[in-house]
C-alpha cells in the first residue's frame, strides 16, 4: 500500500511540471495476452441406432451409415486442430468370445466436421484401427461440429449376437500441436 501511494505521488509531480519547467513524460505500458484455447459449448451427444441386425441376422449397415449427432465448440488459435477417435459398438450383454459365424462388434468410421469461416474442415477415424485418426487444422472457429457415421461393418460379416451394443465417438480440439 505504501509503495503504490509513492508511485502515485511521483506521477502527480510530473503532471504538474509543465507549469514550472520543460515537459517530461512518463509512460506506463500495459500488456496482456490471450492463451490458445478450445472449448465445447455442447460436449456430449447420443446416437441411438435401434435394431442393428437385418434379414439373416447380420448387420444392417444402413442403420448405422448416415446416423449423426451435433456437438458445438470453438478454438481461438490459428493452429488449432481437431481429431476424432471412433470406438466400435460392442455387445455389452454377451460375455465371452462369439461362436463361429457370430459377431459382437460393429466397426464404423466417424467423421466430425467443423465450419470455420474458410469452409468446412473434417477429421475422421475408423474404429477398426486403434487410436485416433489424423488431426485436421481447424484454426479459429466457433461452430457446430457434426458427427456422422459411415462404413459400418462387422469384422467377419457374421450374424450379430443379441443384446445391447455401445460405442462412442470422441472429438478432441487441441489449441496447437
Amino acid at each position, binding site marked *: 500500500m505504501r509503495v503504490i501511494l509513492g508511485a502515485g505521488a511521483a506521477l502527480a509531480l510530473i503532471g504538474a511540471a509543465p507549469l514550472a519547467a520543460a515537459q517530461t513524460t512518463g509512460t506506463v505500458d500495459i500488456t496482456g495476452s*490471450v*492463451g490458445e484455447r478450445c472449448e*465445447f459449448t455442447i460436449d456430449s*451427444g447420443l*446416437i441411438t441406432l435401434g435394431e442393428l441386425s437385418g434379414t439373416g*441376422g447380420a448387420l444392417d449397415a444402413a442403420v448405422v451409415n448416415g446416423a449423426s449427432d451435433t456437438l458445438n465448440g470453438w478454438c481461438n488459435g490459428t493452429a488449432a486442430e481437431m481429431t476424432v477417435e471412433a470406438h466400435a459398438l460392442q455387445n455389452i450383454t454377451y460375455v465371452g468370445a462369439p461362436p463361429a459365424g457370430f459377431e459382437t462388434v460393429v466397426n464404423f468410421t466417424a467423421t466430425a466436421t467443423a465450419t470455420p469461416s474458410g469452409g468446412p474442415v473434417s477429421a475422421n477415424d475408423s474404429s477398426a484401427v486403434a487410436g485416433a485418426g489424423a488431426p485436421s487444422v481447424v484454426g479459429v472457429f466457433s461452430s457446430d461440429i457434426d458427427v456422422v457415421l459411415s462404413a459400418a461393418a462387422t469384422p467377419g460379416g457374421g450374424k450379430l449376437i443379441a443384446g445391447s*451394443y455401445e460405442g462412442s465417438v470422441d472429438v478432441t480440439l487441441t489449441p496447437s500441436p
Partner: protein
Amino acid sequence: MRLTAIILGLAITGLATAAVAQTAADGQAAVTGSVSNVCVLGAPSPAAINLGQLSSTSGPRAGKLSTIADQTVNLPSSWCNFGGTRLSISSTALLAADTSTPPPGFTRAVNFNSSVTTWGSPNAQVTTNAAANGSSATANGDSGVQADPRAASLSLQLSQFSAPGDGFLVTGAYAGSVTITLGPE
C-alpha cells in the same frame, strides 16, 4: 526506479499468463444400438416325404407294414443369435384317412421316431405311440439347452417305422407330420 519496477512486474505477469493458458477440449457422442433375440429355421428340404406303398403286397408280411427306409430332411442355415435355446419336435403318427375304428388285428396308424441332431445335448428325439385306432397319435420331444448362440444345418431323421401290434394296415391314404420349433428354453 520504483515505477520501473512496477512496469516490469506487469510485463512478467502477462508472459506468465500466456504460458499456461493452452486448453484442449473433448466432446463425445455416445452410440448405442441393440440386437433382438432371433431364431431362424432353414426351409426343410424336402418339404414333404412320400413313403409310397406302406404295406407289403406279397410274402409272409403281405398286408402288414413293409420295411421303410430311414428318411432325412435337412434344415440348412438354422440359427439362434442368443444362448439358452431349445429345439422341440412334435410328431404325429401316420394315420389312415378313414377314421373308422379298425377291426381287431388291423391298424390305421404307423408310428415312427423323429430325431434332430446338433442342437443342444441331448438331441431332440421322440417316437410316436399311436394306438391301432389312431388315438394318442402326437408325441413331443425336446432337446437339451443350447447354451450359446449357434448357426448350423440341422438334420431331421425319421426312422423305426412300425405299426401298433404289427397289425394289418387298413387301406387308404395315410398322412402324418413333424413340426420342429427352435426357440427360447
